[in-house]
Structure formats: C-alpha cells, structure tokens
C-alpha cells in the first residue's frame, strides 16, 4: 500500500489502453489535462473531441454519438457532470439507456483548494436516482483501471466517480472485479465496515486498529453503488449484526443511504454512517479537509464503537 495514484490517472490510462477499439469516442469539456483524457488524446487524437466549457451540450452530444453505435466516454468534473448536466444525463442518456460512460473526476472534498463550488458531494445521490444508471466509485488505481474497462465492455450508461487526489493502492495488480459485486477485503465477525472510494483505505486502517483493541471488523468495498451487491450486504448484516458505512459524499443519498435501503428491507441492523455531514465543502489542503470533515480512521473507529453499543 505504498504507492499513491489518483483514480483519475487510472481512468486516463485505462482509456488509452482500450483506445484501440475504434468504437470508443472520448469527449472532454476543456479539462482533458485534469480528467486525464489527454492520455487517450495523445494516442487517438481523431477520436477525442473537446466540447469546450459546455457540459450540458457535451452530455447530449454523447447521447447522439451513442445512438450511432459509439461507446462514448464523456469527461468533466463530477460537479459539472452530475450537477450541471443532470437533465441531459437523465433525459438524453438515462431515459433512452444509451451507451455513455460519464467519467466524473474531482469528486468529493479531496478536490481541496478549489473549494465547495468544485466539490461534488451530491453526485452519487443524483446519479443513482436515475433508472438504469450504473454507479461506480473505485477505491484505488487498480480497481479504477479494471472498472473503467468493465464499463466499456458493458452496454448502458455508467457513472464513474473518480478522484483528484493521489490515494493509496489497495488492490494487488490483476485482482478480478465485477460490476455490481462487492469485495470483502478483510473478514471479521463483530461488525462490518462498508466503504468505497478512498475511504476503503481508511476503513482498512480503522479495522487494523480495531483488531488491536479486540474488535473484529469485516471490511467490504462496495465499488458499485448501483446495482448494489444486496446479497453481500445482507450476509454481512446477518453474520456481524452491525454496519458502518464510509464515503466521501454527503451522508444523504449516497453509499450509506443505499446500504440502509438494503438493510431496512431485508435484515435491519444498527447502522452508523461516516461521510460529509450534510454540509458544503471548503478550500484547504485535502489532508486537512479530510480531518476537518471526519473522513478518518479515527472517526470510523468511533462510529464502529457507537454501532457496537447499539447492537
């Protein structure tokens, strides 16, 4: 876990790796150096189109391209994809279920210094409310690379949530992933910590510390928020009896909510949520913001103890 790579870098590399497929078109909105689609552009300039600072148009252009049989990756910051272009994603991509992959980088507060206007903490809530939309939030570069490729192979709209910040690599190279299937990274019997994005790394850190205190915590990476791995979540609830969710997103409408929806309908157990507590982000160094907003192993440990008290 020594390497640190941003998932957006893995996105750009994956696009460049699969770009030999002539059916793939990549769109960007004046951010190709930041979203890393420039990696694709270098190899396949004839299939990379800059749509300028016009995200709404870009999403519906993507829909038109997809209607002609193209696999389209449309890239911009998560805020301007899920936020600004929600109507286009909903009506032009989601409603006709077109083959557009939304490469949404710079999600969450780890955007850092740019501040709240650029820190999407609502995007998962927005995207998972669209019927038929697949929503993916990879933990690290290895899983991001694999999940981007899997998204390209499947038919239909996919929202890929990617980060700006360099984050620790959690998975071994060559790990097999499946969209819609969570991964148990550590077994445990007292409680299950369910995370995604860079919070998977924090969850593992918390679980290690809990182990030292005699608390056996299972850690699951739910990289696909939709369709969610209902079976794995119910099993964890049945076997450990308590759940803590961890996400770099508002605690309203994100992973925590999605997990809670599964639990209340199938296997109600106490749940605590670690995430952005229904407030906007702010400017600052990502590491500082992570502390300020409680996206830490310490907070996960605290919430775990709280949920254990409620068992």
């Amino acid at each position, binding site marked *: 876990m020594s390497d640190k790579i941003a998932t957006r870098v893995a996105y750009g590399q994956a696009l460049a790796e699969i770009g030999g497929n002539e059916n793939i*078109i990549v769109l960007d909105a004046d951010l190709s150096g930041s979203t890393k689609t420039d990696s694709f552009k270098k190899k396949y300039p004839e299939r990379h189109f800059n749509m300028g600072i016009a995200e709404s*148009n870009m999403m*519906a252009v993507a829909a038109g391209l997809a209607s002609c049989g*193209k696999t389209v990756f449309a890239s911009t910051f998560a805020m301007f994809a899920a936020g600004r272009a929600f109507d*286009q994603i909903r009506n032009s991509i989601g409603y*006709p279920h077109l083959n557009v992959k939304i490469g949404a980088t710079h999600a969450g507060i780890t955007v850092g210094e740019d501040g709240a206007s650029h820190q999407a903490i609502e995007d998962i809530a927005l995207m998972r409310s669209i019927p038929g939309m697949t929503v993916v939030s990879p933990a690290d570069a290895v899983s991001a690379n694999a999940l981007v490729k899997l998204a390209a192979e499947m038919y239909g709209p996919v929202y890929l949530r990617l980060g700006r910040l360099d984050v620790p690599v959690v998975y071994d190279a060559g790990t097999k992933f499946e969209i819609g299937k969570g991964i148990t990274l550590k077994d445990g019997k007292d409680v299950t910590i369910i995370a995604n994005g860079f919070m998977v790394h924090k969850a593992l850190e918390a679980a290690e510390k809990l182990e030292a205190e005699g608390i056996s915590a299972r850690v699951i990476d739910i990289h696909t928020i939709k369709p969610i791995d209902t079976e794995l979540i119910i099993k964890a609830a049945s076997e450990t009896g308590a759940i803590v969710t961890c996400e770099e997103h508002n605690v309203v409408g994100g992973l925590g909510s999605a997990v809670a929806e599964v639990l209340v309908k199938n296997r109600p157990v106490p749940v605590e949520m670690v995430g952005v507590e229904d407030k906007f982000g702010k400017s600052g160094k990502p590491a500082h913001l992570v502390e300020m907003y409680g996206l830490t192993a310490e907070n996960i440990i605290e919430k775990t103890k709280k949920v254990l008290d409620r068992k």
Partner: protein
Amino acid sequence: MDAMVKSQLKRISTQIRKDIITAVSSAGSGHPGGSLSVADILTYLYFKEMNIDPQHPKNPDRDRLVLSKGHCTPGLYATLANRGFFPVEDLKTFRQADSYLEGHPNMDKVPGVDMSTGSLGQGISAAVGMALAGKVDRKDYRVFAILGDGELQEGEVWEAAMAAAHYNLDNLTAFVDYNGLQIDGKITDVMNPEPIADKFRSFGWNAIAINGHDFDEIEKAVEQAKSFKGKPTVIVARTVKGKGVSFMENLASWHGSAPKKEQAEQALKELDDYLAGL
C-alpha cells in the same frame, strides 16, 4: 418542383394535419399548434428527402431526424405513421398509459424515432453527436434537427450551435419552426430570440430564410444545405402556428391544448374541404 409531386406532398401533409387533430383530440391533451406549423417540413423530409426505410428503422446508414422541439409528437408520429413506420390507427392511443406513443418522443418504443427528446435544447446537441459520428465513420448519411423558435431561448442550443460549426458539421441541417409563438405568447414578448438567422450566422452557420409552408422553398433550401460544404446549415422557416385549421392559426393558446369534440370535427372538416380542393 414537379406539379404532381407538389400536389402529392400537399395531400400527404393535409392527411398528416388531420391525423394530428385525431391524435390530440383522442388523447385530450398534446400540442397541436406547433405540430400543424411543422407538418409541411416533416412531410417534405420524410416523403421526399430522407433516406429511410420503415422496414428497417435502425439501419445504421439511414438519414436521421431529431425533433428537438419534442412536444410536437403529434406531428412526428402522424408523419411516421403515414410513412409506414407503424399503423395510423395507433395514433388514437397517443398519450395513453397502455400505448407506446409517449407524449414526447421515445426512441426505444416508437419505430422511426431517432432520439428521445422533450427537454428543450437537448435534441440539437444529440443531432450534433449524430453528425459527428457520421464524420468519424466517414458515412454520408445526413442529420436533420427541428427546433422551435421559443426553444432558441435555451442556452444549450447555442452551445450546440458553436460545436456544430467548430467541427464543420456540414452533414447537419437544422430547421427552426419560426411560428413566432410560444406558450406564454409572442416569442418577441416572452424573450426575444431575433434576429434568428443572423445569430446562427455569427455562430458560424450557413443560414437560409424561407416560407416553411412552401414545398418549392423547402426543397431549394434543403438542396442548398446539402451542397454547402464546411458549415452546418440552419433553415429558418417562417410558419403559421396552427396552420390549416382556421380557428387555431396564430394563437398561442393552441400551443398545448386539445380541441374539444366539436372543434376537432370542425378542424377535420376544414382539412377535408382543403383536400377535396387539391
């Protein structure tokens, strides 16, 4: 245009107008005004111009049409039905819960619909995407888009206009159904989009102004658009909202309301009388 061909197109567009009335009055809701105003343009494109095959509505090499002013499904559906994409009889199920004829175009359910639209401004962007795909694939199909004049108030239209010119999409032709009215009244009173042709020109388009009810002018403009290289073309077509039904013409109130039974009967009679005189 050959007199016989023109006479035939007039017959077809009048039949389409009748079917618009039938669809909207059967549903008890819908958008007759803008459907009637765009009926001649749709007729020309689907019956004279476009390379399409109702037996193979998804043929990848076909010409495409995006109804960006998606609320005018009565016009589009009546045209597609008369062109043989689905039974004309089905127009009577328009907007019903057990029908495939959704209130706004649905490309998955309705044969011949090339893009799902309804949220204004998005169809023209999708048409840009289709034209871009045609360029990437070096295919010679053409893409048509139909915009409302009120729709030009959507900022996305101008994002799309900029992109179409930037990528030299001369395989794209947009029509503006310039009937001058939108739900709340005159476009010039609500939010003035004029001068329309000049705006498109300044965005890098070839622009042509015509009478959108004159088949000779429609043909001439479409032919000019096809031969114009390096730029997309917009055809700003002056039309009459509610065209062909005396009590609907030039009234914003018929934008989105259905005729009552007696009104529908009168409208059909007027159109029948016109048909008999052709």
